[in-house]
């Protein structure tokens, strides 16, 4: 599904990613862990097509298709989804209208008509129920005045609606209490299938207790310095990141 080869990327002249290699296959869940400043969020932003980051070399392909020339919206149309660590507030645009706009933009890009209102409504109801989202919530302005937990739940709601092939969850667990964490994890688990893949970017182990990864990668100084299975996450939780840093240096 996703292949990242020897990826170097910088922001404002500062090199952040220094040769990332990553292979994510359909049906897999990958966790990318690492200390602050290791490049985790940069990697997710670069895959999703944030123009603030400059890809110096290397390649990113999705199902064999090179993404390097694609804008963020084109990547979204091809099935990439990024759940933001800090979702943006949009006053005056309701959750419902926003998701309608996003879905129909993707459909338009694929040469399809707008989704019929009835189907849209049914879809919204089902996905809202999955994430235990109240219908009143859907008519509020997007992320405006939302609690941290509401914002993250809303991100996963959008993911559920957009049905991406590759979902990247950037620090989705931050700002969540345990109940919200369980709801979000349950939603992600329900949406998992043999045809899609999930990358979880996180600092901590706790989300991985609920969404169990097939592979865990540790990022340090812009490189993946260690890969393993879910046990690696436990090891990191127990020992901290210092031993990884030493290992890398």
């Amino acid at each position, binding site marked *: 599904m996703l292949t990242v080869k020897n990826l170097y990327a910088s922001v404002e002249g500062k090199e952040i990613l220094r040769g990332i290699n990553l292979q994510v296959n359909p049906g897999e869940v990958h966790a990318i862990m690492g200390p602050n400043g290791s490049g985790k969020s940069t990697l997710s*932003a670069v895959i*999703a*097509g*944030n*123009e*603030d980051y400059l890809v110096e070399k290397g390649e990113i392909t999705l199902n064999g298709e090179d993404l390097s020339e694609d*804008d*963020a*919206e084109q*990547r*979204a*149309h091809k099935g*990439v*989804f*990024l759940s*933001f660590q*800090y*979702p*943006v507030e*949009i*006053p*005056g*645009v*309701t959750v*419902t*209208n*926003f998701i*309608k*706009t*996003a*879905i129909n*933009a*993707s459909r338009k*890009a694929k040469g399809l008509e707008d989704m019929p209102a009835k189907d849209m409504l049914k879809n919204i109801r089902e996905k809202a129920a999955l994430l235990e989202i109240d219908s009143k919530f859907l*008519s509020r302005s997007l992320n405006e005045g939302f609690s941290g937990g509401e914002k993250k739940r809303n991100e996963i709601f*959008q993911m559920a609606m*957009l049905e991406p092939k590759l979902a990247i969850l950037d620090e989705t667990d931050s700002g969540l209490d345990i109940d919200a964490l369980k709801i979000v994890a349950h939603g992600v688990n329900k949406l998992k299938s043999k045809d899609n893949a999930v990358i979880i970017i996180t600092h901590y182990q706790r989300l991985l207790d609920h969404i169990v990864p097939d592979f865990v990668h540790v990022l340090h100084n812009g490189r993946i310095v260690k890969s393993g299975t879910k046990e690696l996450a436990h090891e990191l939780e127990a020992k901290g990141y210092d031993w990884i840093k030493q290992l890398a240096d």
Partner: protein
Amino acid sequence: MDLKEKLISSFMAFEEQLDLSSPIHEMRTSSLKQFEKLGFPTKKHEAWKYTSLAKLLKNDYSIFPKKETVIELKDVKKYFLYDIDTYKIVFIDGIYSPFLSDTTHDGIDVCLMSSALSKDKYKATIDKHFNTIANQNDSLTALNTSFTKEGAYIHIFKSVVAEKPIQIIHFSTSDQGPMLLQPRNLIVVEENAQVQIFERHQSLNQHQVLTNSVTEIFASENALVDYYKVQNDLDDASIIDNTYVAQKAKSHVSVHTFSFGGQLIRNNLNFFQKGEYIDSTMKGITIIGEKQHVDHYTLVEHAQPNCESHQDYKGIYADKSVGVFNGKIYVNQIAQKTNAFQKNNNILLDDTATINTKPQLEIFADDVKCSHGCTIGQLDKDAMFYLRSRGIPKKEAKGLLTYAFANNVLESVKIPAIKSRINKLIANKLGVSIGHDL
């Protein structure tokens, strides 16, 4: 002959066709002298530093409409608030259109300035109010006064709540070449009375039209006035709107100005607070592009204690458009416990667009809360990436964020039909689809 000379030499002919014994005859004459002395404002005047009328004044405007033009309702319906019941005062090229209007004398007076100026029953109200708060030292106001003939006259009597909003609509047609229009409105709202007014100026064909309008609004004790101005005219239409509001104790007056189209727009909006516990609200959304020019020049005079004023102007400028905001807040020495707030936030969508923004605070009382803030920025990059990462293309993402930026100004619009109309105009202007259930 330049426009000033033309106006001065036309004045005699203008007066002769009116009643020379009219109570405002002397006012007209002295105002003309004032205009003759002051002339049109130029960029040398501090208040006109960023807005030049020079180009507009080169047009050979006709000063009086030559003939009446007939318009079919079906052709202009879309410019009205048509989905709610309203009173209407409609003018075509400055001439009253009884066919398109719906006036009343039933409990309130919604009628014409020309009849108010000529009939005895209105004399007391005219004598008491007409031209009493309009700035005599403002040349454009003086010019309007000297040629005062027609406009809207609205009188809401004590404790009456006008049950329908009132629309004041001015159409202009291309039949008569460049045209100067000078409507004059008087709005008197007595104690405990309430009214909502919607004003629009609309050219029906591309032609040079310059409107120099003066409106005086009087809100008595505990009165409530909500005034909405839509400025979404064609590219060759310009307007100078001079609005003066006098408020007595405990009255609330709001003026919302939505400026989306036209060649040059200048809004001189003046609030005079003459009692305690008054609330004055001035809000605006400006969205322009190409070479359009919008200038908001506001003044609030806090003369008595315990009053509030709220200003919130949002501006969005594309291409080579120019925006100006100058907001003056004056707090008299005795006006303690004044709360005066002013915000002017702007987004420049292109490097070629310009905004000049200037708060002016003159505070002579010591126990007051006054705040002002102006910002100039571009659309937030993180927000753009957020929208685009959800599959929303760049252009639509820009539109949505711009819409979101301007949106909170609409919160204080009380008439749902106006709110949804403005929403549609904004969405249209920004090229976004924001759904019907907003």
